[in-house]
């Protein structure tokens, strides 16, 4: 089940990326179809920090992000002292929350941006309303643990997804069920049904596309 869901999220994410790349292309900031070496490098450093508590990698992340966080802070908080606080708070959380970063869900830049924005939101409230509360992470959920609390929704979504699986044409349903519910490999399923693996792939693709359109129609 989870595979189906993450698959559709992934596709949506890709779409987002594409439309955005075409808009930034003019600036030469990004090349549409090639993998972005910077993105990969940052993800690699992040993993080093998460898995090995690697300070050298942290230092590299710091060198990349800190000046930009500082610039954001100066613009938003209008004070160099506060901007430095923002750098410190954001980079501290990059270190302590590194294990929650999930490369499949977001680019490192997006993750760090979210941390920074949330932190900045709480700092602005402190400055403007003298409030010590922290709402940033409730407004823009950041970490895996936040998702885990939303089990109810997932459960509902799973239930409705299951129902839509039932509504697929029989040949597609057979393949979707085989791969995602019986957890067969594509080859095992091809052998079992006595069809070429290419047919398994194409039925799976058609079935997932149909599921996705069901979901978009009913839940968007």
């Amino acid at each position: 089940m989870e595979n189906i869901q993450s698959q559709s999220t992934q596709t949506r994410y890709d779409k987002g990326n594409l439309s955005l790349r075409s808009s930034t292309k003019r600036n030469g900031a990004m090349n549409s179809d090639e993998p972005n070496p910077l993105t990969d490098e940052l993800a690699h450093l992040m993993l080093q920090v998460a898995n090995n508590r690697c300070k050298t990698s942290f230092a590299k992340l710091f060198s990349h992000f800190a000046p930009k966080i500082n610039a954001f802070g100066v613009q938003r908080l209008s004070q160099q002292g506060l901007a430095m606080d923002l750098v410190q708070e954001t980079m501290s959380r990059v270190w302590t929350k590194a294990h929650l970063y999930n490369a499949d869900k977001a680019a490192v830049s997006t993750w760090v941006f979210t941390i920074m924005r949330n932190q900045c939101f709480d700092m602005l409230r402190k400055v403007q309303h003298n409030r010590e509360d922290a709402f940033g992470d409730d407004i823009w959920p950041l970490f895996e643990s936040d998702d885990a609390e939303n089990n109810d929704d997932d459960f509902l979504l799973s239930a409705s997804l299951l129902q839509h699986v039932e509504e697929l044409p029989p040949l597609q349903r057979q393949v979707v069920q085989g791969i995602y519910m019986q957890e067969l490999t594509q080859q095992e399923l091809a052998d079992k049904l006595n069809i070429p693996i290419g047919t398994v792939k194409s039925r799976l693709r058609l079935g997932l596309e149909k599921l996705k359109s069901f979901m978009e129609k009913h839940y968007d």
Partner: protein
Amino acid sequence: MINYHPDQHLLSLHAKGELPLSMSIAISAHAELCAHCQQQLEQMTIALSEQQFEQVNASQHVSEHAADLDSLLGQFLSSTLDNLDADDNAEQAPNTVPGDNSVTIKGQHYVLPRVFRKQINASWQGIGKVSRLRLDTGEPQARASLLHIAANGEIPEHTHKGSELTLLLAGEFSDCYNTYKPGDFMLLDQDHEHSPKTTEGCLCYTIVDAPLYFTKGISKLLNPIGDLLY
């Protein structure tokens, strides 16, 4: 099917984190109910983060604060990171206690969007069919509340000095313009009069009385330095 959504301008201010808390709560709650807006917000956030962090700016000057940043990094490497890890090990308990985000009013139980979970400890006040739970956002410019109208209740006709935001969380209501469903996000200005009625009862999140307060970015309205002087 949700028919009323925040406009692009509001969504983009929200993605930037430039809206006040009261309005940020509204957009976040709407997005939790509306996959379409959620997706737009995600795309905007990706675009903003790339703009902020990945664009290679040819004329990128050496930050005038490079020395400060270097010394901050030095501090991180020599002690801060170790201290953070030590703190982390010390407090094993999860620091995000999942708050209860449900409310019960007049025998009706509602599960609210995640964003409300720190806000709903206050008690309900009300007369007749209309009950209100005031949220403490600390913003003098706006009053944010959860508003419950029991079945067959109505709010007398009123206009607004500033704007009024209503996000329907559960149930239904209608006014002279339309009938609304959970997730609908309605921003009315002072020129509109309306008297919402509900047959099955409803629960809304509302923000009232803030001329132009929540539709402009914080940065345009408030000068942080000015605020610091008071």
